[in-house]
């Protein structure tokens, strides 16, 4: 090997191309730290200090955060009242389906709720449905967002079957989701004084402005033989039908709450609230439950202890792990990179670490 060649080449390795041997260099790849896989790299390893510090810090941050979340959730006042069972007259209690499906029976039902603590305005009114699979594939797909958005797409109802069209033309809004619109209504009063329920702005602003057209009016809705739920006022455009918008935001879980309205006044502790419920919606055929929920809100949302508790548990476990690792480190110190673990002489197959 000629040393001359070696020196020119090492010069080329440094990045400078010597012209003397241009033929040689023509096939040579361009040198860069990337091509040589020599980019400067940071190579962290899991030292005990690093790992223990990580777990400790997570624990220290998570436990207070969990406590804060939990207390936020605790501050939320919530009244939940299940009414589907008790709003069925006792003579129909064996055949609730017959009760709910008979239009001639008065479905009114009065419930009394006691406010446990001061509920600051706004108090949100939700209806909660249990065992209601709004996330079922056939159900979720049975809608036409195009049709809801603009009147020109009125006829695009291909996913909506069987609630796609009647003899008079396409159903607007079509599909099972709209068809099954929730139609229980609630009237609230305290000491025979009616409480105003604000049903405006319960739907998302984006839905009102972009998803539901202001020139789309309900057509042929609930005109078939089988009535699924609420009827819609065909003189009001969809962009004003906020109950529909709320309902059409399908829930991902079989238990869900949907906003019914807002009470924009404080409810005092121990006040008795009279609720007149029009119990129209049929959940009896699939043993679903209906609940009325009055709830205040906090920065974390409604009443939900999960996050707080999970935070405390995870934080606690992290601290526990940190302590364990510290103990292990103290009791059984193990030098990192100890060459005595590099026992090549042991039979390779017998040492599977």
């Amino acid at each position, binding site marked *: 090997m000629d040393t001359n060649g*070696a020196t*020119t080449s090492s010069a080329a390795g440094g990045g400078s191309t010597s012209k003397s041997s241009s033929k040689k260099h023509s096939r040579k790849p361009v040198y860069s730290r990337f091509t040589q896989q020599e980019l400067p790299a940071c190579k962290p390893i*899991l030292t005990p200090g690093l790992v223990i510090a990580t777990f400790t810090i997570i624990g220290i941050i998570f436990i207070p955060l969990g406590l804060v979340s939990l207390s936020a959730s605790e501050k939320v006042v919530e009244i939940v009242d299940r009414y589907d069972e008790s709003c069925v007259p006792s003579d129909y209690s064996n055949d609730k389906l017959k009760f709910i499906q008979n239009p001639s029976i008065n479905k009114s039902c009065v419930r009394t709720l006691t406010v446990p603590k001061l509920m600051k305005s706004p108090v949100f009114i939700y209806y909660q449905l249990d065992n209601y699979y709004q996330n079922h594939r056939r159900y979720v797909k049975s809608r036409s967002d195009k049709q809801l958005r603009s009147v020109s797409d009125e006829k695009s109802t291909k996913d909506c079957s069987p609630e796609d069209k009647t003899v008079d033309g396409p159903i607007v809004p079509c599909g099972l989701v709209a068809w099954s619109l929730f139609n229980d209504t609630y009237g609230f009063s305290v000491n025979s004084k009616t409480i105003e329920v604000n049903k405006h702005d319960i739907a998302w602003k*984006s839905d009102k402005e972009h998803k539901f057209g202001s020139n789309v009016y309900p057509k042929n809705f609930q005109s078939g033989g089988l009535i699924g739920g609420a009827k819609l006022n065909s003189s009001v455009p969809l962009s004003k039908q906020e109950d529909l918008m709320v309902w059409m935001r*399908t829930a*991902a879980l079989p238990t869900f709450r949907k906003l019914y309205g807002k009470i924009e006044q404080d409810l005092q502790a121990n006040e008795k609230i009279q609720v007149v419920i029009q119990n129209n919606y049929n959940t009896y055929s699939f043993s679903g439950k209906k609940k009325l929920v009055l709830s205040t809100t906090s920065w974390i949302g*409604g009443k939900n202890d*999960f996050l707080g508790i999970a935070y405390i548990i995870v934080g606690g476990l992290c601290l526990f792990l940190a302590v364990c690792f510290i103990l292990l480190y103290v009791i059984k110190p193990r030098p990192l990179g100890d060459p005595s673990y*590099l026992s*090549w002489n042991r039979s390779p197959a017998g040492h599977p670490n």
Partner: protein
Amino acid sequence: MIPISIKVSLDLVKSLYAKFIDWDAEMIDYETGIPSHATNTAISEDLGQVEYIMTDKTGTLTENRMIFRRCCISGVFYGNESGDALKDMKLLNAVAGGSPDVVQFLTVMAICNTVVPIKSKTGAISYKAQSQDEDALVNAAAQLHMVYANKNANILEIRFNGSVIKYEVLEILEFTSDRKRMSVVVKDCQTGKIVLLSKGADEAILPYAFVGQQTRTFIEAVEQYAQLGLRTLCLACRELREDEYQEWSLMFKEASSTLVDREWRIAEACQRLEHDFEVLGVTAIEDRLQDGVPETIETLRKAGINFWMLTGDKQNTAIQIALSCNFISPEPKGQLLLIDGKTEDEVCRSLERVLLTMRITSSEPKDVAFVVDGWALEIALKHYRKAFTELAILSRTAICCRVTPSQKAQLVELLKSCDYRTLAIGDGGNDVRMIQQADIGVGISGREGLQAARAADYSIGKFRFLKRLILVHGRYSYNRTAFLSQYSFYKSLVICFIQIFFSFISGVSGTSLFNSVSLMAYNVFYTSVPVLVSVLDKDLSEGTIMQHPQILFYCQAGRLLNPSTFAGWFGRSLFHAIVVFVISIHAYAYEKSEMEELSMVALSGCIWLQAFVVALETNSFTILQHLAIWGNLVAFYVINWIFSAIPASGMYTIMFRLCRQPSYWITMSLIVAAGMGPVLALKYFRYTYRPSKINTLQQAERMGGPILTLGNIEPHPRPMEKEVVSPLQISQPKNRNPVYEPLLSDSPNSSRRSLGSGAPFDFFQSQSRLSSSYSRNCKDN
């Protein structure tokens, strides 16, 4: 949902592995300026799993740059003292004095070839030769004042000591690997004498010496040169009578023009002429070992790779080269077992004997190698394939000499059939079959043209680059592919598991939690980039790997990609899916359980976990990795904000809404902590308390200190070797006692001593074997 992404990412990454090989500045042959090249981009990680390397000798281990070193003319040894015959005053004087033997010898050196002299304008003569040996001989002759000056049609012109001698070439009997010699028939233009000049392997020349010639000194010369690892050629000549030549010429012409069995007929015709030689002498040509060959072989052997040398060369030359390049260890550590025999029975017995020795010694840490020649190999492969296979498995080293290209390929096939990953490396056309047969073919783009390099998966300029090719490129590629493929499964499985869990709360109706855009983008945009930059990941630095080549064992044994590691990743994906799913459905319950929102919460949970999983599994962070991992996380939000800004999309405004909610961010950090905490804890525990060798080396490397002491501890890979192993005596059935069995050879000289007494025996044996092999070859043709 078999992840299509795995295929795409793997292909991308593999082409990058190949590019890294092409780009590697440390694998450029600076003599020729040729960089290494990966022709096959698909098998880089197989390089890291090589278990057997089959190597050619000439041009692969050696430089294939032939230099004339010694010669023996009429019983006089030249060049023994100085090591260079061209500088030996004895020879120079003999040349000057015009000693007829020497002149005749030089004449054969100069004209018994197919070299073409080319005269440049300045008058200097350069030679164009097909074979490096001929080139060396012609050049050496020229330096000894026998200048092959010109070739004009059939007239050769030779200048010797100022006088010009002209020869007319009548016939050229070309070299074939079966005959192992080549001859020319020339007519001296001055005297009109017709002479046959031959050169060839000793066993192709010496047995055909005329009756009465003492070939003893030549045999000794051949032996001696072979012990030194030199390539020997015997030169001979014979004066032909005019009528004898004419008669033969007719026969030869007829043979050359036959259509059936021409090669055989020509060989037969040649045989008619090539006998009763007057042996002139022996030349010894040195073919130096390439730089770094012993180190490379030692390192790779330490890495647990078994080496087989398959060569067409003589046994002794092969053994010497093997010794000088650490292929086999000298006596106290190593032991050479010979398989030979001319008949089935002999081969069988010798095979069984070797096998028995192998079985006994396999428990002892001793370098046992077997040597087999082409003829015995042929019999062994044909009749005792099973025994030979067992031997092949037991033996870490083997030397197969005098093997044909097809036998090379057969041996590769044999090892492949035992489920070993084989790598064949060679440089010449005769290695092409072996290279193509092996799992990985490596060609040396050397002096014998590019045939091998073209046929191979990888072409490198020098043998020593093999170390880097396997240990660095092969190992990194394997590690990266192992991570990448398992990670690709992991990330796809996370999504799948979440979908499955979701189906249980959606009435098992098959609703997709994620919208179609997210599902599409998940593999393409959200998770592909971080894993692709894992091509830059290096678990250990190159220096550490070179220092501890044993670490390659993890690749060979498939420690990083096997059912149990796969199960680990499977479990991790299941765990992460549970974490993401449970946390998102509980944090986003009741009034928040809106489909699109929940779907984005779960999806972003997955993406966050991906980022941290990649970060945790990355060993070395370059700026690109940071960019890819954290940039990808940012890109996820950017992409989703863009989608959220399109009114027509299903997730219109969703991402903006989520990002404004504190509970969203709280949920994300909960998912990350709950998902990564146990993974980190487990990894830390194994890393510290059950470290793999890779981990230990990583720690050693990065803590800085102990790495130096590591180097001191490590050079005794097998401490047991120090113990004295009683030399095994194999009882040979023949009464003539065994020269070979324990080949005592610390140095070429000592081995010569041990071989000395056996030489004649060997010779007679080889003589008879040769003739039989010759006739066999003829029949084969």
